[in-house]
Every structure is written in structure tokens, then in C-alpha cells.
């Protein structure tokens, strides 16, 4: 099986009652239209071109969105799953009829927004809430990883008793007739023993949650005083700016040593609209919000990494995003950039899949895990010896 590319999808752009109730917005596009940069260092938000400001509740609009995603080579969307006080809402009903034929849905559980899961609770209460969560995921054709429905836990560290909670969720999934649950923690490395707690894999956090390299602006006390004196743009102090290339490269260096972590790729990112009081994350390439060439290489290399490091049915690359217009990471064609990012994505996925075809699954078949460990120890010993002889001049 080739590597599957899943794009994070914002399902709030629809007029269905449950989604409107959850987000409390009459028109979700309005926030994108009306967002105004607070600084000339903020890239302006973009607006959709080809697909327009769609309402996913209209089947024709949802159909066009899914058709364009399929055309680019995306295998499915990842939708947020949120608790609205009474039930879990995904907005997936609008997209479900368009799924099938190698395009499906997965979910990201926004557990960090619920106090319930942060505190101790009885097993029966947790089971009852878990069954509601699972029932919300039973919409349309699911993306299967290792034969199970794929769900990302957004804030794994905020789950009280993660081992028990994951166990309950998996049991409830089976009870609900699902083929099981494949749970991915939103974490950059397996330091907290996530995999032993019942997670099946990890995924790189988004750019705002994991600053993978140092920012290019490093404000200090003087910066603060200069901002207060009106001598400097306040975002120099409040926001963080990163060079896109280094940011992406840092995420891929020695990444097989971070454990079973699936790559997340993104064409651009600037989330000032989500941080009106500062604290935004900005990626830039020589003063521009994106470089489609480097982004394409990011996608292509992430696909190859996934192919080389994971089991055939667990090879994913997560694309941020299909339509997160509020962070500038959208792949959808836009008014300012046309179809540059869309085409770069399509071309990169094509290239990645072509190269994957050329790879041989059976490479290094004669080396088992024990031998790999022995080699790693020998390498470590040789490097230690070399360092020691260097210090003694030997």
C-alpha cells in the first residue's frame, strides 16, 4: 500500500444546525473576510477562489471540495471532533456521502477543550462519554489504519489516566461495531511513553505547538522597552517568526530516532488571526509566506520517510491543511496565490508516489531487530572511541 496523504479539514464552513451551534457563528467565512492584520509583518489572510466561500451543507459544494481534494491526490480529510456540551460534533455528515472509492474521513479529538477528561472520573462515567464520542465517529467511510478507524488525540498530556481512557475508547469502538480504533497522539517524540500507554503512533504537532527551530526574532527587555516607547512594531516582541526552510528541515533531521512519529507537512503558517493579543507563530521564506518548491520537497520527503519507516497499512502523511484559512496553511486555490500551492501539492504527491513505486520493500531483509541493535551499539562504541582518541590526540 502506498503512503496515504490526509489533510486537516475545517468543517465549520457549513450551515448545518449542530455546527452553527458549536461554533456560534452565522457565517464562518465572515471571520476570514474581516480579519485585519495588526502589523505590516502579518501576511494578509487569503480567500478562496475556485471553490468560493462554500457552504458544505449544500451537497454540490461538498462534492466539489472532495473532488478537488481527490484530484490533488489527497486520500481523506481529518475533521475535528468537539464536545458541544451535549454531544460530539464533527460536521462529517456533509462530507460522508462524497466518500468512498479511496477517499475517506478520520478525526482529531479536541480533548483539551473538555474538563471532563482532565479530571479523575468513574469508569462508568468515562464509558458513557466515550460511547458518545465513538458514535460521533461512525459517519461515512472511515480511514483505516492497520484495519482500524483512525483518530488523533489533540492533547494527549491532558488526558487523566490515559491508559484507562484509551482502553475504554477502544472497547467502545468495538462495542459500536467499528473495526477498532487506531489512536495517534499529537506529540513530536515518544518521550512520555505514549506508545506504551496504548497509543498506536504519534504525529508531529502543528507549527504553533512545536517550534522546531529557534525563531529569527529573539526579543529581550530592550525590545520590550522600544515597543512600549513606540519605537518598534509590537509584534517584534509578541510574535515569533521562523524561517520556513529551517523549520521544516529541523522536523526531518534524525526523525527516525524520535519513535513512531508520522510527519505533518504544511505549505505556510501564520496564525495572527487566532492571536489578536500577540503570541502568533509566523513562517516565512525570504519575506514571502511560502515557497512552493521547498514545500513540495517537504511533502515528497515526508512521504518517502513514511514509506521507509512504517508498516504498509500505517503509512500516512498529515497535511496541514486543506482549508484552514485562518492560519494561511490552506491548499485550496485562493485569490492571492491562485492554484500555486494546490498544484505544488499535486505535483509533490505525484512525485512521492512515483518514487515510492521504485522502492523495494524487501531491502535489508537479512538484518533483524537484534542485529540492528548490535550494530547501533558498535557504532556508539566506535564513535566514543574516536572521540576519546581525538581528545588524547591519539
Amino acid at each position, binding site marked *: 500500500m502506498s503512503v496515504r496523504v490526509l489533510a486537516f479539514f475545517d468543517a465549520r464552513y457549513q450551515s448545518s444546525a449542530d455546527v452553527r451551534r458549536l461554533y456560534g457563528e452565522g457565517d464562518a467565512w465572515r471571520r476570514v473576510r474581516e480579519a485585519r492584520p495588526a502589523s505590516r509583518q502579518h501576511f494578509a489572510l487569503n480567500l478562496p477562489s475556485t471553490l468560493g466561500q462554500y457552504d458544505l451543507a449544500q451537497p454540490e459544494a461538498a462534492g466539489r471540495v472532495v473532488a478537488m481534494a481527490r484530484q490533488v491526490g489527497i486520500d481523506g480529510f481529518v475533521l475535528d471532533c468537539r464536545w458541544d456540551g451535549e454531544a460530539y460534533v464533527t460536521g462529517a455528515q456533509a462530507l460522508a456521502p462524497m466518500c468512498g472509492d479511496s477517499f475517506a474521513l478520520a478525526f482529531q479529538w479536541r480533548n483539551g477543550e473538555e474538563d471532563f477528561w482532565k479530571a479523575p472520573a468513574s469508569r462508568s462515567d468515562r464509558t458513557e462519554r466515550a460511547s458518545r464520542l465513538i458514535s460521533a465517529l461512525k459517519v461515512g467511510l472511515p480511514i483505516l489504519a492497520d484495519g482500524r478507524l483512525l483518530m488523533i488525540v489533540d492533547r494527549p498530556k491532558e488526558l487523566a489516566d490515559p491508559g484507562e481512557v484509551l482502553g475504554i475508547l477502544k472497547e467502545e469502538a468495538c462495542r459500536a461495531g467499528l473495526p477498532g480504533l487506531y489512536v495517534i497522539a499529537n506529540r513530536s517524540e515518544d518521550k512520555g511513553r505514549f506508545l506504551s500507554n496504548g497509543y498506536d503512533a504519534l504525529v508531529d504537532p502543528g507549527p504553533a505547538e512545536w517550534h522546531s527551530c529557534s525563531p529569527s526574532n529573539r526579543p529581550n527587555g530592550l525590545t520590550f522597552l522600544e515597543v512600549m516607547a513606540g519605537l518598534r512594531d509590537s509584534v517584534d516582541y509578541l510574535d515569533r517568526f521562523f524561517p520556513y526552510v529551517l523549520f521544516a*528541515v529541523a522536523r526531518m533531521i534524525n526523525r527516525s530516532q524520535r519513535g513512531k512519529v508520522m510527519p505533518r507537512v504544511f505549505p505556510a503558517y501564520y496564525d495572527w488571526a487566532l492571536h489578536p493579543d500577540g503570541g502568533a507563530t509566523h513562517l516565512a521564506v525570504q519575506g514571502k509566506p511560502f515557497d512552493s518548491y521547498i514545500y513540495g520537497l517537504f511533502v515528497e*520527503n515526508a512521504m518517502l520517510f513514511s514509506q521507509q519507516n512504517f508498516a504498509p497499512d500505517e503509512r500516512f502523511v498529515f497535511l496541514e491543511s486543506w482549508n484552514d484559512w485562518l492560519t494561511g496553511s490552506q491548499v485550496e486555490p485562493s485569490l492571492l496565490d491562485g492554484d500555486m500551492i494546490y498544484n505544488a501539492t499535486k505535483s509533490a504527491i505525484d512525485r512521492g508516489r*512515483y518514487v515510492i513505486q*521504485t*522502492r*523495494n520493500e*524487501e531491502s535489508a531483509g*537479512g538484518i533483524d531487530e537484534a542485529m540492528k541493535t548490535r550494530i547501533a551499539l558498535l*557504532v556508539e562504541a566506535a*564513535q566514543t572511541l574516536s572521540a576519546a582518541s581525538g581528545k588524547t590526540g591519539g
Partner: protein
Amino acid sequence: MLAGLSVTSSGSVERFSFVFGSGAFRDNEIFDSATCPPSRYVVEVGRRMIRAVPSTEVLIIGNPLLPLSPQQLAEWSGAVRSVPAIVTDARKFPILYVLPRRLFDDLERFLLSLSTMDGDIDRRLLQLVTGQEVSQIRTPGLEIKHFPVTTPTNWFQGEVRQQMLKVLSLAAIQTIERNPGWRNLPFATYQPYHAGSLLFLNLAARQVPDGFFKKQILCWTYKDIYQSCPGPLEPVWLRLPWLPRDNSVGELEYLARSLERLGQDVIDNHFIVFMRYSRNYSVPPFHLIDQVKFALGESMTDVSRTVHGQPPACSDRPDLPPHPLKLLFHLVGGWSLKSYRDNDAATVFTVLKSLGCDITVIDRPDLAARLGVRSIISDDTERLTAAVKSHHIFIGVDSFPHHFVRHVLGWPTIGLFANTKPCNSDAKEAPDYRPVVGNLPCNPCGGHDSCPVLGGENCANFADPAQLITAILGMASDLYGFTF
């Protein structure tokens, strides 16, 4: 981006729009090849249109260097009253060509000599080839001005390369004017000065028996490569040293000296076509051999035609006992970032020696002496062949010896890649061939002497020692039953 209009005798017009392919081989994709002149795409667009509309009588084809749409072609060709014709910008940069069908049926290869840069030159060439008056129409509202070094559609055309295309078009005009038998003259490739490209050219030519070319121009100093890997293209020897890597001699100056050295007789009896890079070769995922196959005339419309889609052309291995495992390393690429790091090499050798392996290093006597391994110098293919055949596995960076050992000798090989893209120059992965590389998104960076992202002379995208040793021992185990 590659646009064309097909016009039938009944006057019906069909519009075509193609893109440069990225590996999916869709109907609207044309193979992306860096090793052909832009004019090769005029030929290919024409072929595709004729295949789709066999009754095509007139072909209107946009200049492949320009991102044109069929709508623009329809608009700008409206003033054309006769065929053939060229529509140019105000400064005579060709925008589109209006060509008769018979050019594609009988004289297709002569379209390779279009400069795609100069309307006057191309008009003269088409007049001579077709024997007809060619009208040249200017579009007053459009001015290309200076064509840039790189474009979003991946063209890589510095001023020098543009001049070279014009020079070779002028040479073709001269050939036709001076030689009445020009229709039967051979086409010769011009890429005389790079060992790896020469190797790939000959390997590709073996797979394109009915291509445009019958001859190749190559440096005399590469005679051993040609003899070790001959192809069907007859050599025209150029008695010049290869182009220096330090840019002390420019490509245009080298071309001028080449033509001078080849002499008038060669020019009068050949059509010479520029075959070094016109596009960035590392953007598409295609092997350079496949890119050359397209340049030679193969349309490459199916993955099964590619190096990666076919079984290896040759395979061989030594008649040696599995122990001691004999390993031959070549660690020096053409530039710093392609060369494997000395520190990592030291670690790899230390571990492999501790496991009883017997190690030889090519062209690094200093490193060999320091690390206590055997050293050999391999300055021609005969010596390289002899060295390879006394070892179980060859481990080499992305450079000529690697390509020769794998594609010509078929020897078990591990390819060490770093800042170049493996799929452009590896081989089909198999139990006896494996490329080893990291996954940094800066690959390929195009840097030579220092890393443009992290700084320093080393590339962080090389596989670490443990990965390399695992790959070597895995292959040794699979092929020879080596145990440790």
C-alpha cells in the same frame, strides 16, 4: 503550460493543454526532461496532438519556454494567413509556431534545431526545411524582454545557454545551405564534457534504437568510458579537455572552441543538438537515463518504459567466499556536499573491520592511511572494473563510479546519496541495489561547497553510520549468506 491547437482540413480546431509530468503519467502530462533543448517539446506537443486527432493538417504550438494557454494561441494566431508561420513578440522572441503536418510526418527531427529564442533564426530555418516562405507576425502587445535564468515552469536558461541554442540553430542553417544532401545527414548530440552524462547517454541510446540521433560528440579524454559502455551513437571525437569545473571557461566559449576544433567538415555534415541541461533535472522524479531517452526521441508515456519500471539491464556478482566480506568504497563526489563525511567513514570502517570485513577505498589514500584500510587509485574504467570485481559490494556516492558499477557492470551496489535526489541517478532497487539517504526537505538543494541551510561543508542528509552498516550487512546476508 504546453499548449497547442490542432486544425483539420475541414477547419475544425481542437485545443490542447499539457503540463510537465511529475510521475503520474496522465494523458495531459508530457515527460519532464532536462537533457533536451526546448524544441524537443515542440515535437512532443505535435506528436500528442496528431495522436489525438489523426486528421490534423496544421499544428499551432506555443513556445515551450512560455506558459501559454490554448486560448492565447487561438487569439494570437488569428492574424496568421499562411502556413508555416511564426508569431513573435515585439522583439522577435517566438511566441508560437504554425506548422504543416508534413513536418511531423517526414522532417520531425529538424524541429530540434529551432532555437525557440529568436524568431528570425527560426523563420530562416523553417524556410530552408520546408522550402516554403514562412511568414513572421509580431504581436504588438507582448514583449518577453530578457528570458530569465530560471522560471516557475522549471526552465533553466541562462543568457549563455540561450546564446548556445542560437549558435547551434545558426550552425544548422549553415549546414542546410552548404550541403545539398542535408536531409540525410545525421543528428549528433552535444554534451561532450561530463562523464556521468556521457554514460547515461549511451545507456539511454541503447533503449531508443529509432531516435533522432545517429552520432554523439564527446571529449577524446572520455574514450575509455565510451569503450567500456558503447552505445549505438557513433562517436565524433572532440579533441579538447573536458569543461573545467571551476567555471574558468564558460559553456558558450567552450562551444565556440568545440565547433572550431571539430572543423567545418563536421559542421557541414551534421546537425548538432545541445543536450546538457535546459531544465532543472532534479525537480522531476525521473532518472537521468529516462530524461535522456525522452531527449533522444522516446515519448516516455508509460512508467513501464522507465529505468525504475524495468528489470535491471545487467546483473553480476563475484565468485568469492562470503568471508571475509570484501567492500569497496568510493566516498568522493564531484563537490564537498556529495562527499561522505570522514568522521562517519571512520566509524563505518571501524565497525566493519571489527566484524571481519576487508575494506578498500578508492581515490582517498589519505583517509585509507589514517584508518588502516587498503587504498587504490582508479583513474580509468579498466582499473575500476578490476577493483570492483575483486569485491563483494561496491558502496559509492552519487558520482560516475557508482553509476558505472551499477548500470554497466551490474555489481551489487549501495548508493550513498545526500544533497542530490536518488531517483535522478540511482538504479532500480533490488536485492543487489539499494540507495541510502535521509529525508530532509532541502534535498535536493543544489549546493556544492557549503550547506545553504545549516552551513558547513557536510550534508546532513547522508544516512548515519548505523543505517549504512545495516544496509551493507543486509545486502551481504541476502546475496552471500554473510553472517556475523
